[in-house]
């Protein structure tokens, strides 16, 4: 029996007026992989994220998760199926404690507070925020906020976790911490799709890299292949004269 892929994006196109934010993008993510999506600003990475997670609906094309088509599902339903995500700009619930934030995520799988609380503590132990669980979410540093957002996503028990620039704006130490966390999540068997600008991180974590430019996929391959590719270098640095 053929193992079904975790995520299949097939010819997805999303237009905003005359602008093709995503133009006929296709790629496949296998279960257990860590795939990075890179590209210059405005390449359509976040739009693609929004299409997959149900925040936008593509104008054409098909998206399947675990063999089931989810193209026109609404965001909360896709989440319930096992796709969690974070945002480029951190989204947390500011008037709740760290623990309550994560617990709200865990409530997707538990109807009662006590077991959800237990699950939340387990996740916080895993992500290393357990000692700060009583703090208000807004009292955290930016690095910890990003970690909290990942914890909230993990609490929904995803099969596929999509991280949108979880490493932007971190110090070197924080960056390494986040890289280790992502690898650790991968080892738990959760498939990861990561949008990232920090090449150092991309090189370390990715099994495969998908490169977007002006809404089109221009390349797909191992991290080592991607960084030496002419077209990719051109997209980032412009043409050689």
């Amino acid at each position, binding site marked *: 029996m053929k193992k079904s892929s975790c995520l299949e994006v097939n010819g997805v196109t999303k237009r905003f007026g005359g602008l093709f934010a995503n133009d006929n993008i296709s790629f496949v993510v296998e279960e257990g992989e860590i795939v990075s999506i890179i590209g210059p600003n405005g390449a359509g990475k976040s739009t693609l994220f929004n299409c997959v997670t149900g925040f936008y609906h593509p104008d054409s094309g098909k998206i399947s998760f675990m063999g089931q088509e989810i193209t026109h599902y609404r965001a909360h339903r896709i989440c319930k199926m096992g796709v969690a995500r974070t945002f480029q700009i951190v989204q947390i619930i500011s*008037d709740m404690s760290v623990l309550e934030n994560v617990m*709200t995520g865990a409530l997707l799988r538990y109807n009662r*507070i006590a077991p959800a609380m237990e699950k939340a503590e387990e996740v916080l132990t895993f992500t290393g925020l357990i000692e700060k669980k009583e703090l208000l979410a807004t009292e955290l540093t930016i690095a910890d906020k990003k970690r909290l957002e990942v914890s909230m996503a993990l609490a929904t028990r995803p099969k596929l976790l999509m991280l949108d620039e979880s490493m932007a704006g971190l110090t070197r130490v924080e960056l390494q911490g986040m890289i280790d966390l992502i690898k650790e999540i991968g080892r738990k068997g959760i498939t990861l799709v990561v949008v990232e600008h920090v090449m150092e991180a991309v090189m370390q974590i990715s099994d495969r890299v998908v490169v977007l430019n002006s809404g089109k996929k221009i390349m797909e391959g191992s991290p080592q292949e991607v960084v030496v590719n002419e077209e990719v270098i051109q997209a980032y640095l412009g043409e050689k004269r």
Partner: protein
Amino acid sequence: MRNLSFKQISLCIIVLILLILFPVAFSKPFPQHVMILIFMFGTMAVAWNIMGGYAGMFSFGQVAFFGIGAYTSSFLLITYHVNPWLGLIVGGLISALVGAAIGYPCSNLRGHYFAIASIAFGEIVRTHFNNWKLIGAAEGMTLPMMNESFGNFMFHSSKLPYYYIMLAFLIISLIVCYFVSTSKMGYYFRAIKESHDVAKVLGVNVVWYRLIAIMISAFLTAMAGTFYAQYVLYLDPESVLILPISVQIVLISMLGGAGSIMGPVIGAAILMPVSEVTRVMLGHKGTGIDMIIYGTLITLISVYQPKGVWGLFSNIGKRMK
């Protein structure tokens, strides 16, 4: 927060006993009337708080739910001789349904936009009722005199039964609010209040949970509406469907502390005596004076303690620990 401490429970019981004994100490009608208004607006503020304070939908149209509740039970009583208690349930259900019907198309409206839509909703209901012949249009409706009894929800010789009935309604709405705020629903409401996006990625069906919040709020507010009709025995759109009532509900909740269980009740306990006393002491010359006092209080509280009087209390409580 999830489990009430022994201290909190005993405090609640003491307050409750004091409230039950209040009419013994103050047997004149006026203080009892003021207390009834506190309970009534307290109930509506608690109901608003479920929508506004927890789920982040700043409704300025609560008066429509109040009016629908009052009109439904009164219309049923006058036309079909339906018992007001049954009318109360029917009014609550109709109010919840209307709330859901109007809330659904407003699912994506947030913040100011939701507030504006809710004002429009309240005004549309008022205009309709002002012109709807079946329910008396602008002339309103006078409820028939019936024998005084609990079953008839009508009392003539004393305000006392009204006092206890409204106190019971307030307690019911507080219990509802307590269960909402400590359950999955409450956490989902707070996620929705923060942002629809964060709620969606946590798997919250935002549209559905917003409708639930609206329906709970509408039902409780309509209960207060039926009570008002049975208490005053006369209804017209200009007394039960006007915007200032909606505004007052919001002010009470904000002053007391939106997003806390007891905040709205404290707000009502502060603002209702102010408006009643100025109304009685200054009569028509005093129209608006209560609003000036409200305005001052609201400004002070929003500058110095955005979490309302309740926030002030809990800060003091923390310091004393």
